[in-house]
């Protein structure tokens, strides 16, 4: 079911790479909002964007498909990686194969 989120201007600016990730993310979880409107520092899970654990799985699969990075289960860093668009984009940039 597409999620509906009230569109408000993000408080923090997206970097070009964050915008790219946001575009893939919106597509992966069928989020009913413009990728531009995602505040890069808003929590993805639970409060904030309101994504759940199945959405997080979809994002992990998207990261694997788009960037060739396999996110491991029970990684202690998962909470940090999936915290926000910014933390996710940061993780992808640091781990994508060159």
């Amino acid at each position, binding site marked *: *079911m597409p*999620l509906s989120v009230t569109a408000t201007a993000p408080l923090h600016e997206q970097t070009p790479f964050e915008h790219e990730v946001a575009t893939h993310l919106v597509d992966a979880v069928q989020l009913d909002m413009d990728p531009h409107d995602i505040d890069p520092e808003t929590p*993805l*899970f*639970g409060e904030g964007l*309101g994504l*759940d*654990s*199945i959405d*997080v*799985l979809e994002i*992990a*699969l998207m990261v694997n498909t788009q960037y060739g990075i396999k*996110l*491991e*289960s*029970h*990684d202690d860093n*998962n*909470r940090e990686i*999936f915290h926000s668009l910014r933390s996710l984009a940061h993780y992808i940039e640091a781990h994508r194969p060159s």
Partner: protein
Amino acid sequence: MSANTWLRPEKGNLVIGRLLIWVALHLGYHITALFRWPATLYYATFYPSVRRASWRYLTHLHNVGRGQQPHYGMVLAHIYAYSTNILDRIYLLSGRFPPHKIHIHGRDYLLDALKQQKGCIIMGAHIGSFDVLRYFGIDAPVRFRMLMYRRFLGETSRLIETLAPTFQADLIELGHADSMLTTFNALKQGEVVGILADRAHDDSRSVPVTFLGQTARLPAGPHQLAARTGAPVVLVSAIRQKNGSYHIACRRLTDTLSQGETQSTLHPHILAYARWMEDLCEQNPYAWFNFFDFWEEGL
């Protein structure tokens, strides 16, 4: 989050829990079994929501022609069945339940499903014994893990679970960002994952279906997970028989769900799951262990 009343701290009393376990482990099954009626009367007296939830369920069962006209004796019998379930938990988790009293039927469904090498989802409900269902999973030739929502787990349940040293290791706890990622990877590795798929905890991820004549919300997540992973789904129930043994029955829910399934196309599968639960309730009216406002009608 849904307003579902199961998302509240579980009822129970730690002192009574400790006493019950001590008696069970030192004085034996038959002595401990005598505590069931006082426990039943205690819950029936001091927990009106439990009593009302039981009455509501028995009424719905009767109204769809699958159960007799409810009376208060049935409510007591229902709570009594739950106290028996708790009693058996102590013996099952501490490894003192006689294995010859667990009869597995349809294990081939599981073995056939595993041949596909896509893991397997054992889908159950809060009908009958969750621990016997777990026993069935542990018996599988591959690693078995149980998906559980534990934030509101009561002290008594935690206490009882300490009787099984491997209980925690076999869990995937729901409610974390990476719960489904862990489950997905477990299935990809060919493992068996047990899910009780009758309690919704998120409105956006649940769908309304008719269950015992009334609308109830059932979670779509387990079915979406099945579709996403391609893991076959086997429905499993573990019901206590009158002689104290357990009967495990399996049924295939559907052939493999395909990746393109959306929440709406999954609806028939969720409906099939609801029909399976209805049949179980009709055959075992007191095995329903959802003592909360399941239909969200207000208790």
